[in-house]
């Protein structure tokens, strides 16, 4: 009965505090600026007559979506999946196999990709999420490898050699994806939607539980959260989002093969996230853009560019903590 309800709930400094919710910080402004510029890229590139760069940007954005989806579980959820390329493959084959049977309807492709990515994520998640740490990394990797070999063994769909996709997904009455600019905007809008989705997810109660479970699972369980199930749901959402990116990748490359699911590609997605900065909404996009830029640039210099690339990746871990997001935040202001 000693005085416990004392503090009058009026005074303190809401404005210094409120910024974690309301105001847009300096670094976010930079990121939003980049997003807006990306929206103006196609007319600009056609103006300077450099259509090749549109291809490059398309690839950056597609892998940006994939990296963003991986960051949902890896950055926010602490689940280090080494098998996310599986969903790129699933999405791409959801374009390729129907196209093989001359089904070109894009809605069918998307629906298939969503359903099948979701099922694969759900089934593999049920088992992998029971494990932790090294086991989780390895088991996600192994599941993807399983899918890889499955597609290698499917002779009907080209096996190891893959499939050529004759026509891109069709969205009758909406737009013509054979036009590269249309495809670009299609990807761009999906990217915007994905960014918004992930932003809302992590601010919503669901995301708070996911973040809380990353930092202190024991406590989250003792608060009454079944962390396993929340993670599973998060894992499925992430898989589906990456599956959608896969649909674009299939359309973009017009050629699909099991190689898309190779585990080194899963590793590359992780790298994109780390380059951009784990725990940041825009980091994965920036990371994928830089990753592809360096890939393109270095491979033009020497055939042995992978060596330089490998050294860069090692150096990034040893010396470059926080990624580009750390740099931008340092330059343009806090983002908490």
């Amino acid at each position: 009965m000693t005085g416990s309800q004392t503090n009058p709930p009026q005074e303190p400094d809401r404005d210094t505090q409120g910024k974690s919710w309301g105001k847009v910080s300096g670094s976010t402004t930079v990121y939003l600026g980049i997003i807006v510029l990306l929206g103006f890229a196609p007319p600009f590139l056609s103006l300077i007559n450099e259509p090749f760069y549109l291809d490059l940007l398309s690839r950056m954005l597609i892998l940006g979506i994939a990296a963003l989806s991986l960051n949902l579980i890896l950055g926010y959820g602490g689940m280090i999946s080494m098998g996310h390329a599986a969903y790129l493959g699933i999405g791409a084959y959801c374009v390729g196999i129907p196209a093989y049977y001359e089904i070109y309807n894009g809605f069918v492709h998307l629906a298939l990709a969503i359903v099948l990515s979701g099922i694969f994520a759900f089934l593999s998640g049920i088992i992998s999420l029971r494990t932790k740490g090294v086991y989780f990394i390895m088991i996600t990797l192994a599941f993807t490898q399983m899918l890889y070999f499955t597609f290698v063994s499917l002779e009907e769909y080209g096996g190891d050699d893959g499939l050529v996709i004759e026509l891109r997904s069709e969205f009758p009455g909406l737009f013509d994806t054979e036009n590269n600019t249309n495809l670009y905007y299609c990807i761009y809008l999906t990217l915007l939607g994905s960014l918004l989705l992930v932003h809302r997810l992590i601010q919503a109660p669901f995301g708070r539980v996911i973040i809380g479970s990353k930092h202190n699972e024991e406590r989250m369980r003792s608060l009454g959260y079944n962390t396993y199930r929340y993670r599973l749901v998060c894992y499925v959402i992430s898989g589906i989002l990456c599956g959608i990116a896969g649909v674009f990748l299939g359309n973009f490359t017009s050629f699909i093969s099991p190689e898309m699911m190779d585990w080194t590609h899963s590793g590359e997605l992780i790298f994109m996230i780390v380059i951009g900065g784990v725990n940041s909404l825009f980091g994965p996009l920036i990371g994928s853009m830089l990753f592809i830029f360096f890939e393109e640039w270095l491979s033009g210099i020497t055939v042995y560019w992978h060596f330089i690339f490998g050294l860069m990746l090692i150096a990034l871990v040893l010396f470059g903590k926080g990624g580009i997001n750390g740099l931008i935040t340092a330059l343009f202001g806090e983002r908490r």
Partner: protein
Amino acid sequence: MNWDLLIIQCLNGLQLGLLLFLLAAGLTLIFGIMDFINLSHGSFYMIGAYFCASITNLTGSLILGVVISLIGVLIVGALVEALLARRLYRNDHLDHVLVTLGLILCFDTAVHFFWGAEGMTIPLPPALDGQVNMGDIVIPTYRFVIIIAGLLVAGGLYLLVNKTHLGMLIRAGASNRVMVTALGINIDRLYMIVFAIGAAMAGFAGMLIAPITEASVGMGNEIIIIAFVVVIVGGIGSVKGAFYGALLIGLIDTLGRSYLDDFLKLSMPANYAETAAPALSAMMVYILMAAILAFRPRGLFPPATKS
């Protein structure tokens, strides 16, 4: 049932299992003791094969090739530990994944640079190049060489881990890292030895397989994943688990590939069976892993640890 074929396939499975064991034993020790994920462990496999191919071709002696290459891979392993891995033990697993992935790129490119994109073969001495006739069965002599060499290394590792002072430290390290540190052991040196031995075993596996398949760039990147599966199935840190896990997976993979279609034909039309079997047999190892983990999330022989 063709018993001769079954025996041949079992020997093939045994061979694959022992190669996997050579890779997995090092991985599981490095996992278990240093808590370090080395995705580039397969690079040692590749380097071993290339060293051995070069030296054998240079000297004309396979034995000399193997011995010198083993020392070479030991040194490469120790260097990787001292220059890179050591800095990362305290970091989280994500960093391990990233750095060792970068290392794979470096190793693959370096091998490409020094040895070219073409593969390299290792000629076998005539004594090993023959065949053994056992009744109706004809088996290449070299297959027995691989199996015997694999078993010898496994036996040697067993003695090392169970009968020597170093082995005691290794076992203690796999189940309780803090304790080893508390004992006042030179932990850095222990780590380096374990890492180098692991690398050498992987390199040895590469040397054994190269006369059959040839040494090629990136040859370790596929088999290493199955070695990871072995480690997980066996239980991280357990050499015994790696051994049984490797044999189990080697046999299941080999037998699955040759018998699954016959097996499926018992329950479905032949044409379906022939379509489904390759896909299913490719998945079998992973299905097995999933099944084991579903019931034993820490593998078959998890080292006794107290959390």
